[in-house]
C-alpha cells in the first residue's frame, strides 16, 4: 500500500431490539447515524471540513433509510457543507465494506480523511423489504439455489455434524461473554442515544439475555423447519446430494438478533492525523472479499480471512483476537474449524450478534470498534474482523495496533 490507512476512532450506538417495542424504534435511521457522526466529532474535536467523504453501509436503503442516507446524516449532524456522503450495500458486510473502501481511498492517496460506517433500523425497514433480483426474480432465485440464511445455517450444521446442543452451548457462551463485558464496561466505543432535548433513550445493548440457560435455549423451536419442509430443504439437498436431510438446529436463541443501530469509524493518512493532532489507534493491514457457493451462503469468512491474511503476509496464528459475526452459531463454529483455531478462546471474546444483535448495515463497523476496545484493554496487537454475507460472500479486515 502506497499510504498506510490508520484508524483514529470508532464509535457505535447501543443496539435496540428491532421491534416496535424496541427502544430505538422511535429514532429515525438518519438520527442514529447523526448520533455516531457527532460522537466522532466531539470525541476527536474534529474539524469536519477536513473529511473527504462519508461512506455508509446500509442493506435496506429504502424509504427513510433510502436516498443516500449518508449525505442526509452529514447535513442532519450539522457537519461542514463540503462533506459529501455515499451509501453502499454488500448485505451484512456493508459496515466493514465501508471501512475497507475508506482504507482503499486513503491507501491509494485519493483521500486523506474518511468516515466509514453503517446504519440499520431493522424495526422500521424489515430485512428483505427492498426486494431484489436474488430472491424475487424466479430465474435468479433458481439459478442461485436461493434459500433463506437460516436454512443455509442448518445446512452447515448438518454437514459439520453440529448438534442442537452444540449450537445452543455456543449461544449460551455468547450471552455470558456479552453480559460479562457489559457488566465490566468493556464496550468503550459505545455512545448513548438521546432525544432532541438531550433526554436519555438507550445506553446499553438491550438484546442481551444475561440470565438465559441451556434449558431455556433448548426449549425454543427450530425456526426454519417449516419453510424447509415447504421446499427450501429440497433446494439445499439438490445442491448437496449426499445429505439424507437437513437438520434444523437453529432457533431464535442461537441466531443473531434483529436490532437497530449505527456505527462510524474515522480513518485517515498518517500526515492528516498528525496535522489534526489525532492519535492513531490502529492500522489496516489488509482486507478481502470473496464469493462462495450461494446456497450454503455463510461459509465466506474463512476464505475471505485467508485471502486477507495472505495479503498481509500473515497466518491465523499471528492474530491475537478474532471477531466473527455471529449471524448464526454455526458461522463462528465452522470458522474455528476452517481456520484450524484452538476453539473459541480468542474468538468473539465479548460475545457477538447472538447476544447483542446484528444491525445488518452497521455490524461490520461495530465489530471493528469492539475489537479495538478489546485489543487495547488487553494490550494485544493484531485482530481480524470477518462476516459471512448474503448471496454467498465473505469479507475480512486485518488490523494492527500502533
Amino acid at each position, binding site marked *: 500500500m502506497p499510504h498506510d490507512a490508520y484508524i483514529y476512532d470508532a464509535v457505535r450506538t447501543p443496539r435496540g431490539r428491532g421491534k416496535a417495542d424496541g427502544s430505538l424504534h422511535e429514532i429515525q435511521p438518519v438520527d442514529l447515524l447523526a448520533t455516531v457522526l457527532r460522537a466522532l466529532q466531539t470525541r476527536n474535536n474534529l474539524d469536519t471540513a477536513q473529511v473527504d467523504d462519508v461512506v455508509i453501509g446500509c442493506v435496506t436503503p429504502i424509504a427513510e433509510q433510502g436516498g443516500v442516507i449518508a449525505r442526509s446524516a452529514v447535513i442532519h449532524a450539522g457537519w461542514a457543507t463540503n462533506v459529501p456522503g455515499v451509501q453502499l450495500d454488500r448485505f451484512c458486510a456493508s459496515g466493514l465494506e465501508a471501512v475497507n473502501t475508506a482504507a482503499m481511498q486513503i491507501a491509494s492517496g485519493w483521500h486523506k480523511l474518511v468516515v466509514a460506517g453503517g446504519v440499520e433500523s431493522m424495526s422500521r425497514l*424489515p430485512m*428483505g*423489504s*427492498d*426486494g431484489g433480483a436474488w*430472491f*424475487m*426474480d*424466479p*430465474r435468479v*432465485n*433458481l439459478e442461485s439455489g*436461493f*434459500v*433463506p440464511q437460516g436454512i443455509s445455517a442448518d445446512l452447515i450444521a448438518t454437514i459439520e455434524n453440529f448438534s442442537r446442543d452444540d449450537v445452543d452451548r455456543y449461544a449460551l457462551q455468547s450471552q455470558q461473554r456479552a453480559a460479562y463485558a457489559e457488566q465490566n464496561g468493556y464496550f468503550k466505543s459505545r455512545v448513548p442515544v438521546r432525544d432532541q432535548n438531550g433526554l436519555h433513550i438507550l445506553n446499553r445493548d438491550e438484546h442481551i439475555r444475561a440470565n438465559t440457560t441451556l434449558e431455556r435455549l433448548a426449549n425454543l423451536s427450530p425456526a426454519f423447519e417449516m*419453510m424447509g419442509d*415447504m*421446499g*427450501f430443504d*429440497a*433446494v439445499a*439437498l*439438490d445442491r448437496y*446430494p*449426499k*445429505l*439424507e*436431510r437437513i437438520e434444523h438446529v437453529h432457533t431464535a436463541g442461537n441466531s443473531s438478533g434483529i436490532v437497530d443501530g449505527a456505527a462510524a469509524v474515522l480513518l485517515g493518512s498518517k500526515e492528516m492525523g498528525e496535522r489534526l493532532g489525532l492519535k492513531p489507534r490502529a492500522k489496516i493491514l489488509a482486507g478481502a472479499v470473496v464469493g462462495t457457493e450461494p446456497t450454503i451462503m455463510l461459509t465466506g469468512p474463512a476464505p475471505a480471512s485467508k485471502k486477507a491474511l495472505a495479503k498481509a503476509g500473515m497466518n491465523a496464528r499471528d492474530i491475537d483476537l478474532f471477531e466473527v459475526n455471529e449471524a448464526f452459531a454455526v458461522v463462528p463454529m465452522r470458522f474455528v474449524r476452517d481456520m484450524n483455531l484452538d476453539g473459541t478462546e480468542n474468538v468473539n471474546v465479548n460475545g457477538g450478534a447472538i447476544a447483542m444483535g446484528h444491525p445488518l448495515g452497521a455490524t461490520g463497523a461495530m465489530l471493528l470498534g469492539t475489537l479495538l476496545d478489546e485489543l487495547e484493554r488487553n494490550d494485544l496487537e493484531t485482530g481480524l474482523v470477518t462476516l459471512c454475507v448474503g448471496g454467498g460472500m465473505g469479507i475480512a479486515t486485518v488490523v494492527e495496533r500502533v
Partner: protein
Amino acid sequence: MPIHFARESENIITLTFDHAGSVNLIDENFLREFDNHVSRLTNDASLCGVILASAKDTFFVGADIEMLYRADDAAQVFEMTQAFKATLRKLETLGKPVVAALNGSALGGGFEIALACHFRIALDDKKAQFGFPEVTLGVLPAGGGVTRMVRMFGLQTALPYMVEGTRLNVEEAQDAGWIDEIVSSKEEMMERAREWILQNPRAQQAWDADGYRIPGGDPRRPQVMSQILPIAPAMLTQKTHRNYLAPEAILSAAVEGAMVNFETATRIESRYFAKLLTSQTAKNMMHAFWFQLNEIKAGSSRPREIEKRKTKKLGVLGAGFMGHGIAYVSALAGIDVVMKDVTRERAEAGKEKIAALLEERMARGKITEDLRLETLARIHATDDVNDLRDCDLIIEAVFEDRAVKADVIRETSNVISSDAFFGSNTSTLPISSLQSLSSHPAHFVGIHFFSPVYKMPLVEIIRGKETSDAAIAKAFDYVLQIGKTPIVVNDARGFYTSRVFGTYVNEGMALLAEGQHPRAIESAGVKAGMAVGPLAVSDEVNIGLIWHIREQTRKDFEAEGKVFPSDASDRVVDFMVNTAKRTGKAQGAGFYEYPESEKKFLWRELQNHFPLSDTELSQLEMIDRLLFVQCLETVRCVQQGVLTSSADANIGSIFGWSFAPFSGGTLQFINAYGIEKFIARSRELAEKYGARFEPPQLLLEIAEQGKSF
C-alpha cells in the same frame, strides 16, 4: 377454418368457429381469418356487441399441436404469438361488450380466447373441461393466458392453475371465477349473451380501467409478496428438481409480467413461449404425450382386421392386491366382474377392499352414491369356479409362481367357454410357457397390470408364441375400455417394462457395490427424472422378490444349458436378502429404515457393508449410467423383436415405470441426445463400466442409415 359471421337486429354480431375437423383449433388459417373478422368489427360504428360461439360439441380445444411441433424458429414463434394476442387485444378493447358462449370444453388457446371476452357463459355440460394444459406439453399459455390470469386472480391464485395444468369442470370453473354464468341450454346461452350485451354497452376489462391493481399485490411491493415469491421457486424445485423448463417459465412470465403494463407483459409472455416452444423438452413432450399417445389410442398396435369388441363380463382369479385392483377398475368402467379366490372369505375380503376404495372415491367427490352402489353391485365375489362360465374375458392375478398359475389355468380351462379369452397378469413368467397349459392357447394373452392398479395408467399386453390376433385385440379393447393405455409387446423374459426397469434398479445397486455414496445414487436417480431413486424403488418392489426372480431366471438359464450373466448388483441383492435380511418396505427394513412416525432414511450401515470408493463419480456420470442403461436395453428389446413400435417403447417407459417424462421416453431420449453422440457416450461408458453399455447392432445400423427411432 370458416368463422361464420352473423348480424342480428340489435347489431349484435356472432362469430361462430367451425373448423374443418371435429374440433376448433388455432392454426395459421384461423389466425388470419379471426384477425380479419375482428379488424372488421373495429371499423363497425353501429356494432352493439359480439358473441363468440362454436359450431362443434366443444368450444375450442387449443392450438394445432402439429403446427407447434413444427415450429423451430424463435423469431417466427414470437411474431405469430404476438399477432394472435394483437387480435385478442383488439377484441377486448373494442369498447363494445364481447361474450364467450362456451357450449363445451375450452382449453389452452381456446380458453385464452374466452378470457379475452368480457363475459363468459357456459353450458351445463358435465364433460366440459376448462384450463391450461400447455405445461403438460412443455409450453405455457401464450395467447395472453398468463397475463390475463394474473390480472384476474393475482399471482398466488393464478400460478398453480397454469403450473400444474389443472383442468376444471364447469362448476369448478364457475367457483374459481373463470366462468360468470352457467345455463342449461344453448338457446338460453345465446339469449343471456344478448341480454348481457344490451345491459353492458360499455364493457371493459378490469385491467383497462383506471385505478386497477393486481389482486394480492405486485412484486414491486415486496412487503406484500415477500412471503410468496422467494419460496415459489423452491416449491417448484421440490417437485421438478429443475428438470422442466415450462413451469419455471410460467412463474417468471407471471412475475415479470405483473411488474409492467399489459402490453409489455404479453410481450414477455411471448418471449418465454418462443424459448420453450423451440426447446427440445417441448418437442419431446409433444412427441410422447400428443403424437405417440394418440397413435396408441388410435390402435396402431392393435390387429386392424379384428372387429372391436367390448368386454361384458370379466372373471378375475385372485382377490389379492392386484386381483381386486383389476376388479375395481373394471367395475368402475361398467363391466360385470366375477372375482374368484380359493375361499369365499378371501374373495369377500377383496370385495371389502374395493368397497373401501369406492367410499374414498365418493369422499373425494369423484362418484355419486348411486354410482358407488351400482359399481359394488357389479362385483360378484365367489370361490366357485363355475361362476366364471359365461365370462368373455378371464384375468388371473394369483401368486407369481409357475405351479400356482398352472393350477388355475387348468382349472379354469375346463369351465369357460371356448370363445372366452384368458389373460395372465404375470410380470415375470414367459407367456408362451403358461400358454401351453391352456386348452385354448390361441385365446391366451399376457395382460400385465402395474401396481397399484387404480393409479397406474399403463397395461402391457404380451403376445405369446401361440396368441392369436383376436386375443390381442380383445385385450387391447378391454384396456381402452377401462380407461388405461395399452402397449403390445412380444413374449420374452421380463417382457419390455420389467426387463428395462430392472436395468435401472440393477445399475443403482451396481453403483452401491462400487462404493458410490448411497444418498448420492438416490439423488442422481431423482435428478435424472425418475420418480424414485433406484434403492428406494427396490425397497418398494421388494428386494426379496428381485432375488426370487433372479434365482428363477438362473434356474431357467441352467435348464437351457446357458450361463446366467451375473453382475455387480447380484452381490448387493444377495447381501440384503441373505445376510442383512432386509428385503424392503413391506418388512419395514431394506435399503431404508422405516421409522413409524418419521420419514424413511437410508440404512446407516450400508456404508459399512459397501465402503465408499476413493473415486467419487460426478452426479452427471451417475445420471448417464442410470438413463443410458435403460435406453440401451430398450434398443435391445427392439432388436430382439420384443418391441415393434417406438410409441409403445416411449409411452411404456413413461407410464410404466416413470422414465424421465421430459425426455419423451427411452427411445426419444436417444433421438434427442443425437444418435451418433449417444453411441459415442455409450462406448465411453462401456469402456469404463462394462459391456451392458455397448451399443447394440441395431443402434449402429440406424446411425449408419441416418435414421432415428
